[in-house]
């Protein structure tokens, strides 16, 4: 992944001139052209309900779903594509896991860097009698794994952790979490919404029990796609689905199928979206997660060092770009983040996300609550020139430089 081919692609993508999109942690844009084409192909040429009817178009639709499972399985080192359950987004995947696995009296552990897609289900479960411990991270956002281990009790059923903070990009140590969870025989749920497709993940090497991903971020699928990968240590008989309904399988039975993926995939799926997701995941595999990561890490280093040179700008999170995603949080001293973001957009054509990014607990950890911060988030399509423009814009807003 080099800056030049990405720029060619961007031009190809009829992207409006003079706009710089740095809100990729919310959703990536632009998408590879193949994603739009795959979605249009389904709508125009296939259209049928997958696996419900047995005719050629129904089988063709089922094949699109299966190809998406194969693409994601290949990308993440998952041995069995049928362990991938598709759902509406990362939030849905996390809710399936949290509400399905935790009962009153169970204990769950999470980190102080979680997104509300983990915190809100956990807080709701807490009101029903689930015990919740939150492991405090330092202001850099790095997770002290020994504190996770100390918080485990005989009643702990689940450890849930984000793979990387959506606010400040800090990567959490997945391999160490897997080791602790296995040694203490508790299940590990990882929120990989920000990292799937952006950071190499190999489930053979780091066998996470439940991995929740979203389709529309670094996998470059459309919004409305996501999934949960359910590992072999998860006892399906003690893991009810959130929804019951038609699956196209075992039609004679009035009870929900007990096998993967059907148990957790009731109702007609978003085949157009998942066809786009397959194309996005294929694009990522073709370019290589390692290459995309190297591209984004280089741009993150450029962005971090440029912001730190500016007077009147505070940057949060770890200094080392290899310890974080291409997500950078900063504030312009004495200015409201929302007004900074508004000026970036209106005066400089730079789109980003101010505020709390749906993660109040992470901002409390960083010491930026309730003000929040301005977040720049990059993608495989971001170029060095985009970062230079963003830096010039922030410099202009921050005022006279020394």
């Amino acid at each position, binding site marked *: 992944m080099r800056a030049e081919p990405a720029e060619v692609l961007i031009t190809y993508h009829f992207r409006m001139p003079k706009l710089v999109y740095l809100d990729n942690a919310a959703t990536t844009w632009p998408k590879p052209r193949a994603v739009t084409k795959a979605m249009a192909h389904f709508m125009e040429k296939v259209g049928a309900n997958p*696996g419900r009817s*047995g005719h050629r178009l129904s*089988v063709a639709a089922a094949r699109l779903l299966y190809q998406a499972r194969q693409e994601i399985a290949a990308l993440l080192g998952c041995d069995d594509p049928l362990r991938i359950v598709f759902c509406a987004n990362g939030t849905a995947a996390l809710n399936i896991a949290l509400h399905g696995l935790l009962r009153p009296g169970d204990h769950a552990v999470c980190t102080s860097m979680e997104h509300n897609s983990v915190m809100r289900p956990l807080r709701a479960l807490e009101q029903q009698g689930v015990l919740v411990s939150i492991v405090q991270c330092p202001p850099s956002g790095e997770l002290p794994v020994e504190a996770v281990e100390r918080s485990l009790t005989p009643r702990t059923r689940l450890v849930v952790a984000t793979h990387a903070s959506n606010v400040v990009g800090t990567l959490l140590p997945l391999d160490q979490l897997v080791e602790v969870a296995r040694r203490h025989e508790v299940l590990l749920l990882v929120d990989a919404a920000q990292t799937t497709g952006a950071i190499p993940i190999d489930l053979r090497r780091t066998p996470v029990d439940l991995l929740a991903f979203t389709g529309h971020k670094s996998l470059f699928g459309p919004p409305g796609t996501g999934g949960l990968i359910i590992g072999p240590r998860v006892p399906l008989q003690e893991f009810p689905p959130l929804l019951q309904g038609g699956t196209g399988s075992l039609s004679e039975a009035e009870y929900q199928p007990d096998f993967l993926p059907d148990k957790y995939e009731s109702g007609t799926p978003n085949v157009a979206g998942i066809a786009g997701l397959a194309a996005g995941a294929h694009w990522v595999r073709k370019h290589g997660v390692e290459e995309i990561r190297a591209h984004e890490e280089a741009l993150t280093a450029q962005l971090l060092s440029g912001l730190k040179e500016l007077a009147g700008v505070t940057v949060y999170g770890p200094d080392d770009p290899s310890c974080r995603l291409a997500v950078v949080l900063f504030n312009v001293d004495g200015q409201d983040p929302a007004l900074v973001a508004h000026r970036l957009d209106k005066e400089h054509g730079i789109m980003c996300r101010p505020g709390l990014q749906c993660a109040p607990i992470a901002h409390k950890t960083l010491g930026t609550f309730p003000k929040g911060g301005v977040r720049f988030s990059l993608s495989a399509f971001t170029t060095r020139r985009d970062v230079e423009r963003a830096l010039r814009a922030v410099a202009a807003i921050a005022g006279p430089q020394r």
Partner: protein
Amino acid sequence: MKATATILLFPSVSHVLRAESLLKAKGVRCTLIPVPRTVGSDCGVCIRVAPKDADMAAAALREGGVTVFGRHEI
């Protein structure tokens, strides 16, 4: 009457497609067909193989960890 085809039934269409990809990887010829009314009540699809290939197919699927719901000679 001699069987002309072996029908392999699976829990769902996702399993049928996983089975198909495993069989193709092993070079076993197979076809997806709607489940014949005589062998199942479901409305989905199943896999048809030649009777001479049936044992090889069953072994490949066992090795790949795919559950065969039923096997019928028709």
